């Protein structure tokens, strides 16, 4: 498999300026061409001369409350995408939208310092623990079932001694897919029967990921997202890594095949942290990735784990300067007295190198687990939502965020509802929606008040009394909400169905599609094995004419809104022949099982498709099945 565009081990990269400490964004994936993963050479040290903490992930810079910061913005290099916008004037843009000015977070109590995670040094210092202490520590660790580190470090470091870390030292699974698995694109695809849902036929294109039987937990894909043009496809996994695939240019020699997606860049986005005060580990699992619209040659994306959001810049470098006067080709400084002639450095092409560098780190604003991020249509702000609060950020400012929704009750015992997803409207920069665990969606207008606790619209479908059970509330909990590209509709996914809502009608959805109604009789077992809490996502196609969502047994469902037909397809290795058409699957609910049907009891509930993405323009879909990424596209006739 060709590493799409990443340089192999070549000559060592020359730094323009000597750095006090080499900082690389992903030291562990060194085998994959270390050069591509090093941070940008233009990393500016912060005020104290330390290299920017962002290159090392969290931890080197202790969090300071916003009120104590004297300097505006952050000591990182300004975003290249903002013409003429310094950190100080950044507030002039979107935040001056018509309406009352938003109150800064200082007026809303900032979470006390005690609850913020303390900095975790990159190299965990081995502590000198005396024998008695070590014995006591060992007893506690054993009780808590943590394997202690050999170096005798604290329980904090011991938490990292899990297979997740060991798995992360290897390459992300998506990079290890054997070359034979990538679609050859040659040869005719199978005919198959016409797809039930759409007028075109879905066929297999590619699969990424290893075929091991036992999958490392860190390789499980946790989010999939196409960028605005569809040329880039980003995936995040539980090990905190992001892998970006790029679509190859269409090949003239192969007119029948669309471009295939190959690895473009990979980097370690988040590291596991330890919250000393709560004695809990903060997972490095990437919860969401959202791309920013492209404004120059570089690509930007936001990735988030449970507590921290990071803005990453992915840039290409395909030229290097040669012919310096003060340095010779090896990088050694020349003696100025021995230079006899001067020359002008010239740019020479080099192998394409893709660098990912963290540009902003938005941390310490969420007490609960972040479940969604959404970039605003003004391309300057974005929101992040956790279980009880939603914060509004400006992309340039990392030390301040505005709380716009807070549903935390004064008395936590009265808590009955949490926020499950939130999204900005695709065109109106003042409108956003958030869904709750009780099956309701609230649409808020930021112009109405600074704190949008009072919704502008409230979407809830009245409950059907005949189908009420103990699980009614759990299965009504909305796991994902997505606006249509037009902005007129929104789609919500609860456990058994997908509903399409018209923003102008709050009383009920305009469409309801059953995803796996046959599970309704199995809710008790699904409650027992916790599958009822699975959070499925859903997505629209580019023209808003079809919607897609995942199910169990590696099935995923597509609904065509125009023709009212739906189809169930499977992402499996068996149907992974090049350009093989996907056969529609059917689950038999009872009675006689026809041939090719699967009975409900033989469904594999460990194989769940939670994350899917649809190309914004073409009929290309990406489906994440545990640790494998399947790419399907429609057959070009």
């Amino acid at each position: 498999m060709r590493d799409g565009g990443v340089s192999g081990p070549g000559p060592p990269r020359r730094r323009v300026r000597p750095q006090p400490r080499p900082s690389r964004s992903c030291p562990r994936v060194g085998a994959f061409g270390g050069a591509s993963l090093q941070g940008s050479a233009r990393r500016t040290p912060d005020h104290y001369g330390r290299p920017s903490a962002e290159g090392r992930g969290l931890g080197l810079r202790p969090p300071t409350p916003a009120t104590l910061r004297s300097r505006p913005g952050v000591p990182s290099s300004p975003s290249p995408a903002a013409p003429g916008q310094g950190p100080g004037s950044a507030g002039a843009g979107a935040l001056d939208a018509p309406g009352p000015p938003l109150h800064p977070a200082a007026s809303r109590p900032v979470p006390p310092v005690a609850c913020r995670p303390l900095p975790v040094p990159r190299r965990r210092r081995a502590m000198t623990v005396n024998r008695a202490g070590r014995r006591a520590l060992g007893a506690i660790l054993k009780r808590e079932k943590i394997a202690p580190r050999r170096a005798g470090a604290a329980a904090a470091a011991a938490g990292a001694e899990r297979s997740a870390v060991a798995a992360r030292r290897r390459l992300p699974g998506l990079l290890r897919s054997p070359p034979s698995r990538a679609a050859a694109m040659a040869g005719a695809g199978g005919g198959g029967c016409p797809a039930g849902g759409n007028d075109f036929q879905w066929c297999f294109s590619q699969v990424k990921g290893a075929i091991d039987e036992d999958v490392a937990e860190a390789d499980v894909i946790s989010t999939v997202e196409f960028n605005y043009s569809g040329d880039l496809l980003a995936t995040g996994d539980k090990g905190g890594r992001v892998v970006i695939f790029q679509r190859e240019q269409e090949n003239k020699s192969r007119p029948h095949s669309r471009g295939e997606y190959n690895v473009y860049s990979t980097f370690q986005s988040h590291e596991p942290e330890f919250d000393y005060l709560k004695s809990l580990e903060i997972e490095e699992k990437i919860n969401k990735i959202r791309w920013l619209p492209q404004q120059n040659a570089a690509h930007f994306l936001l990735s988030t784990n449970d507590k921290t959001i990071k803005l990453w810049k992915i840039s290409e470098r395909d030229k290097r300067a040669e012919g310096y006067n003060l340095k010779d080709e090896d990088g050694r400084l020349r003696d100025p007295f021995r230079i006899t002639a001067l020359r002008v450095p010239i740019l020479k092409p080099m192998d394409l190198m893709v660098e990912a560098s963290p540009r902003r780190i938005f941390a310490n604003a969420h007490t609960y687990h972040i479940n969604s991020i959404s970039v605003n249509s003004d391309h300057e702000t974005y929101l992040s939502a956790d279980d009880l609060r939603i914060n509004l950020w400006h992309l340039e400012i990392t030390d301040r965020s505005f709380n716009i929704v807070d549903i935390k009750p004064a008395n936590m015992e009265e808590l009955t509802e949490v926020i499950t997803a939130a999204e900005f409207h695709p065109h109106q920069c003042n409108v956003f929606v958030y869904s709750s665990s009780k099956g309701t969606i609230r649409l808020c207008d930021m112009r109405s008040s600074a704190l949008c606790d009072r919704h502008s619209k409230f979407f809830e479908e009245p409950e059907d009394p005949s189908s009420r059970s103990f699980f009614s509330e759990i299965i009504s909990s909305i796991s994902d909400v997505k606006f249509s590209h037009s902005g007129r509709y929104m789609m919500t996914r609860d456990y058994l169905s997908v509903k399409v809502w018209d923003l102008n009608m709050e009383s009920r959805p305009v469409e309801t599609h059953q995803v796996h109604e046959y599970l309704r009789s199995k809710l008790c077992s699904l409650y027992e094995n916790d599958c009822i809490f699975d959070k499925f996502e859903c997505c629209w196609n580019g023209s808003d004419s079809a919607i897609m969502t995942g199910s169990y047994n590696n099935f995923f469902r597509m609904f065509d809104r125009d023709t009212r037909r739906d189809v169930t397809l499977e992402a499996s290795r068996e149907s992974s022949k090049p350009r093989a058409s996907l056969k529609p699957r059917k689950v038999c609910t009872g009675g006689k099982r026809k041939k090719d049907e699967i009975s409900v009891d033989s469904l594999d509930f460990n194989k769940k498709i939670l994350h899917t993405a649809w190309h914004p323009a073409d009929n290309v879909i990406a489906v994440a099945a545990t640790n494998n990424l399947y790419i399907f596209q429609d057959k070009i006739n």
Partner: protein
Amino acid sequence: MFARGLKRKCVGHEEDVEGALAGLKTVSSYSLQRQSLLDMSLVKLQLCHMLVEPNLCRSVLIANTVRQIQEEMTQDGTWRAVAPQAAGRAPLDRLVSTEILCRAAWEQEGAHPAPGLGNGHTQGPVSDLCPVTSAQAPRHPQSSVWEMDGPRENRGSFHKSLDQIFETLETKNPSCMEELFSDVDSPYYDLDTVLTGMMAAARPGPCEGLAGLAAATPGPSSSCKSDLGELDHVVEILVET
């Protein structure tokens, strides 16, 4: 391989119950199913002793389910006030532990609670015992969860059963309590750990289910003191670095 949560071998049992339910639809099998659902939910709520922070959404949904079941049981009248028989006590204990656990679970997540290493291991009883023992608190923690929906008699029974629990708590471990009282620093506590441990010690019979789980956690009050000693030592070590 990725199955989460408990895998109990009573899946077959569940299906049997559902089959019976479908066939007969008798009140007893329905209430049996309801009771088993309640037990399952309490078990799930208790499984918060993981290294990674538990999912707040999941806890809230489970707690709402439990509340719904208890509402229904109230309306049915199957949920009776404190009965002297041991049989009557068993479900009540579970009911009582519900909101203690719910509260503890939420306050674990919400109110920046206990470090495993903190020496304020059980600050909870401080805040709870004072209102209960002084018997004049305007807001009883045990009933506040049900304030919105429970009728008056609920609270009465709650008071009584919780009083019983806190009595045993006091009588069994006076020295432990003193140590706890002495370190009123901040509201960090691990309430459910201690309480389930206490209850397991106090009533081993009917609470086998709970006790079995409490055994997985460092429960028993006898080790309370030694735990605190260990933890103090460890905290000293960590703080000095």
